[in-house]
């Protein structure tokens, strides 16, 4: 082995040149600080990933597939527009039903929860604080044509 080391003596001296390659001055002054800062940051990210892993996955997906992020943003925007449009649109379908009841009796506005409670005792109508569509005569529960829009009628007592 000594022979080999002698053979490579010049090369080994040449390789010592690499020991003189040094990073920029002051490089190691900040090195450990940067490492510790990154450990702290990754620790926070770790806490975040355990609290909301699905959100982290979503964010990672956005990071690696920017097209997906664009599609997601577009979908959110469309949903927002859709929401605005339908929020401003006046409700039209329940009106005929209300008009029908108004013709047969007093105005709908005059029907108060107290009056409903009083009338339910005599007519069998269940009065609740739920919307009007849930107020159904018990007898007509299985006879309705349309399960989603049932005709509502109120009869006030004498």
């Amino acid at each position, binding site marked *: *082995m000594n022979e*080999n080391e*002698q*053979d*490579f*003596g*010049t*090369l*080994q*001296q*040449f*390789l*010592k*040149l*690499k*020991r*003189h*390659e*040094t*990073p*920029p001055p002051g490089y*190691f002054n900040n*090195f*450990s*600080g*940067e*490492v*510790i800062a*990154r*450990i*702290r940051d*990754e620790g926070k990210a770790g806490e975040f990933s355990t609290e909301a892993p699905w959100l982290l996955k979503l964010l990672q997906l956005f990071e690696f597939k920017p097209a997906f992020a664009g599609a997601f943003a577009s979908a959110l925007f469309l949903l927002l527009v859709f929401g605005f449009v339908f929020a401003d649109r006046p409700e039209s379908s329940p009106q005929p039903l209300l008009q029908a009841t108004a013709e047969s009796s007093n105005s709908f506005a005059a029907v108060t929860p107290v009056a409903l409670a009083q009338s339910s005792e005599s007519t069998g109508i269940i009065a609740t604080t739920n919307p009007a569509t849930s107020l159904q005569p018990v007898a007509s529960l299985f006879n309705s044509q349309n399960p989603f829009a049932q005709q509502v009628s109120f009869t006030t007592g004498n």
Partner: protein
Amino acid sequence: MIMAEPAERTDQEPAADAPAVEMDLVRRAQLGDLRAYDELVQRYQERIYATVYHMTSNHEDANDLAQDSFIKAYQALKSFKGGSSFYTWLYRIAVNKTINFLKQRKNRTHMSLNDLDFNTENNPDLVALISENTPRRDAGLKELQEKLNAALLKLSEPHRLVVVLHDVQGQSHEEIAEIMDCNIGTVRSRLFYARQQLQSLLTDYLKPA
């Protein structure tokens, strides 16, 4: 400043109680004490950086890989049982990370070399080498540095690592075997082969013995 040169690092020789102090720092770091880990980073930052730098010949890559190695070591610190020294364990992490990086990088080698320090021209061995032993006496230090790094990059990662650890950083065969998780015979044969390769790659600059 000379990086990671064991033959000349007598000033950095650990004190007699150094292993105990180191183990204490490791235990504190395992419990989440970042100040203790900061001290460990400061102890080994130069040697780890130097190894990675000599393997990549690129300062920016070496910076990223050295930082990543320390971060990975901190994350895996709980699994460190003290079977080897912390230093060897840390070295293994850095070396594996660097080799994986180099395998991915493959043919995209871009050198970003550090400057030679001001002691270079005053080093009698190097002056003698360039003025007497080198056929290319007209070559400047910068040119020699580039040729040497280019030749190193032509070696396979395991061969380059052995040369870097032994001839540049001055580690013993036993230490290298432990770091590379192989036997001493393998280290010796890799070193011999790597030197042969380098010798033939640098014939213009090296006078045959």
